[in-house]
């Protein structure tokens, strides 16, 4: 499928991004930041451009362009981090932010400390075939109109459609007092469709989205009309939905969507900052069997093109593939610089931040469960009575207790080993450590899920996830049916 875009298709080179600020200015800023006796200082520079276009109620409502640029400076002294950010990238603006950060981390020590930066280093940024900025805006808008037409003609019961196109180019640059100088350019493209269906039972909704860390070539692979028809179908199906059951039962999660379950059930609990504060049920459990032996869970920031990937994390560390659970055994947590340093170990490429206005912390990238050997059809056939979740909504977890919820936006009853009636929306609730041990089937149909935004401490970052079909022997379905 081609979207008939007329822009030239010259793959850009994917060079190391170091062009935001000059090395000399960065070194000077770091010297100022270290002047009060800091042990570590870092300058994070960001320049982000984004475009979004919204179609709603049959109209292109708006096209919006955004630009954000600035620098965040942190200084670490002992247990204290001082942080300041500025949108003023002039030498004076950077100096004043560096002074604010170092004053915040005041140590009493003093003296001038010159910082010398090494030559630029690090992995090259991902290669993009078509820079979204090179694509005429009219082509972006046309995608929305096609999606709208496809959704509305899918079924007469579709009463409303909204579609959104978004692209962003995020250039970052990092320099720190250890001499590191590196950068990255991250390009993401996103498309989503939401439909409302109206029937005798009221209104129902259906949504589909696709997002990748790629350029406009996304639409060579993704047919927006097909995406729109799937969103419409989801809303139509739910017009016939019965109330969801209430209580504990087996839950089968379809391919792709189950990543949210792992993201909540244990992903957050394996973040080293929460572990270090004993705010995770998985604290102190490395080396222990925490899941069914067929469970292997990976967090991988290097998965080319996936929503949560990048060349370097927001502390300048190259992305890497980290095995969190291997054959049921908890092998490692995820780390940022601060936590890794305290443990005297290397980071894991999980130090991320929403923007230059935020301090980095431990975050997931693309988190997925490796495929198993079971036949997905047999998993359903072997389930007497339960729920099949075809699409999950978001979720939430209390890492200290391990209790987590996730929403089901398309789900069906399983009766006598067969999918029967669609069920109305609701949450499922479980406990992470218990759910991991209750996984009793993993299929071989691995798929990545929809693009997600993960929120933690008020910061949102793009994350990906994936799973094959799997069954949890017992979760609580939060419906209203007796």
């Amino acid at each position: 499928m081609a979207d008939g875009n007329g822009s030239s298709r010259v793959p850009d080179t994917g060079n190391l991004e170091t062009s935001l600020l000059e090395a000399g200015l960065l070194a000077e800023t770091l010297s100022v930041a270290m002047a009060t006796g800091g042990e570590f200082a870092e300058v994070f520079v960001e320049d982000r451009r984004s475009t979004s276009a919204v179609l709603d109620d049959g109209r292109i409502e708006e096209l919006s362009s955004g630009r954000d640029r600035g620098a965040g400076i942190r200084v670490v002294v002992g247990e204290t981090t001082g942080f300041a950010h500025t949108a003023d990238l002039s030498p004076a603006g950077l100096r004043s932010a560096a002074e604010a950060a170092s004053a915040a981390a005041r140590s009493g020590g003093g003296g001038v400390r010159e910082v010398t930066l090494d030559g630029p280093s690090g992995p090259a940024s991902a290669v993009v075939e078509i820079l979204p900025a090179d694509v005429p805006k009219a082509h972006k808008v046309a995608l929305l109109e096609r999606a709208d037409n496809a959704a509305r003609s899918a079924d007469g019961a579709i009463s409303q459609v909204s579609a959104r196109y978004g692209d962003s180019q995020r250039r970052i640059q990092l320099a720190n007092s250890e001499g590191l100088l590196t950068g990255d350019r991250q390009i993401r493209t996103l498309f989503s469709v939401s439909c409302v269906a109206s029937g005798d039972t009221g209104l129902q909704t259906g949504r589909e989205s696709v997002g990748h860390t790629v350029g406009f070539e996304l639409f060579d692979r993704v047919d927006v009309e097909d995406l729109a028809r799937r969103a419409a179908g989801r809303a139509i199906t739910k017009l016939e939905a019965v109330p969801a059951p209430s209580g504990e039962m087996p839950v089968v999660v379809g391919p792709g969507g189950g990543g949210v379950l792992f993201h909540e059930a244990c992903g957050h609990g394996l973040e080293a900052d929460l572990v270090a504060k004993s705010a995770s049920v998985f604290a102190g459990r490395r080396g222990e069997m925490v899941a069914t032996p067929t469970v292997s869970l990976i967090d991988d920031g290097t998965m080319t093109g996936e929503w949560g990937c990048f060349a370097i994390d927001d502390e300048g560390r190259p992305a890497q593939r980290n095995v969190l659970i291997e054959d049921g055994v908890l092998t490692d947590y995820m780390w940022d610089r601060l936590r890794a340093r305290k443990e005297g170990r290397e980071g894991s490429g999980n130090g991320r931040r929403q923007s230059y206005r935020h301090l980095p912390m431990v975050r997931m990238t693309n988190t997925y469960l490796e495929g198993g050997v079971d036949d997905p059809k047999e998993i359903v056939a072997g389930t007497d009575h339960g729920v099949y979740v075809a699409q999950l909504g978001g979720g939430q977890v209390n890492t200290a207790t391990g209790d987590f919820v996730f929403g089901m936006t398309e789900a069906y009853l399983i009766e006598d080993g067969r999918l029967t009636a669609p069920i109305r929306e609701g949450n499922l609730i479980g406990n992470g450590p218990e759910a991991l041990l209750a996984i009793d089937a993993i299929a071989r149909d691995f798929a990545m899920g929809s693009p997600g935004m993960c929120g933690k401490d008020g910061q949102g970052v793009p994350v990906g996830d994936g799973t094959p079909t799997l069954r949890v022997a017992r979760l609580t379905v939060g419906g209203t049916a007796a």
Partner: protein
Amino acid sequence: MAGTRDDEAGVLAIAERVVAMAAPGEAIEAVVVHERETEVRAYEGEIESLTSAESRGIGVRVVRDGRQGFAYAGTLDADALIEVLGEARDNVEFATPDEHCAVAEPDGVPVADLDLYQSALVDHPTEAKVAMALELERLTRSADPRISGVESAEYGDSVSASAVATTTGIRATSRETGCFLSAYALAEQDGETQTGFGFSLGREPGDLDVATAAAEAAERSTRMLGSVKPASGRIAVVLDPWVSAQFLGIVAGTLNGESVQKGRSLFADRLGDEVASPLLTLVDDPTDPAATSATATDGEGLATRRNVLVSGGRLERFVHNSETARRAGTTSTGSAVRGYSSTPGVGVRAVSILGGDRTPAELVAGIDDGVLVQAVSGLHSGVNPVSGDFSTGAEGLRIRAGELAEPIREFTIASTIQKMLTDLVAIGDDVQWLPMRAAGVTLVIGELTVSGV
């Protein structure tokens, strides 16, 4: 300095400068924001982090021939202003023409004089803010021997100034201060960990109550120790103010003109109908200075006002911005909501329920068999404001024979928004503003489905 009268004049001058660049036949709306924030986090007796931040931003909307284009930038540099205006103009031609699309016109409604700015906050030394965060952490840790740690103890504040200017003659400015303390406690007993939060809010640090925030965090976490998973069933549920405020925000979100016009509100055809228990009177009033989210002008620069949404259970009104009002053939209710990075949406700003005359304890005493919910999770994934279905994770306490009994967790509560509103059987006297667009109050719902074992 952010937030001073000078600063209000400063952001307005920038907005006016952009508006003055309008070409013939073109309407422009510019929104400019300048904010300064401090955040202090304490951990185990030390300052974990101290952030001092300054943010500026501008959003420009250009309307020509019924079409709008928008652009924003997180900087107020002169070159950025030109770039933003140029981008917004360039974006105009891709929108679909719509006769109702326009920037707001002055409507003559007087702007309330709200005192949302306290210079005491601006003058408060950083050392004192640091001391407050450390004290919060210390008090939370020592509040109960079962407190095993404090996951976070934080002091935060902000001082902001903003302005809206349009070619139609709107000139609105505002400035405000705000600060908060929050503690998140970990309680441990027999290898089990539970969590609870405490909070205090104000316009300046003198409003904050460290001891109460610490005691609440400790109380909420320790009382969950020994919790069990309840049996499934239909049962009376008491929602504490933190929980009711979150539900209230969602309910009020369905009562906006845009959702109604676009066929996304479950109350679209219900104006004038009885949609809730006669006990329920729901008001959105951003001019109440006690509201955390109080504001005298809305996102289009029009005066905010008191809007009664539901009166004695009857649906009275939907809220509008100027565009949805024109489409509905009515006037704006001063309910445009936005940041500088988006075009004006529609929504409530400060919604509250008219309180009852019984204390929370009296309400609990009247329930033979029920559940008190003190926290919910998964609101974003478990509530569908279009269909009205809701199901959220919950934790709290059982109520037996009018007394609070054992703690319970890992269950959900579910119903529909429509049914919950009619199942409302009692309202407490404890209306309180919380750090969201809604006030909380203890509510008793006659029946919700609890899903547990």
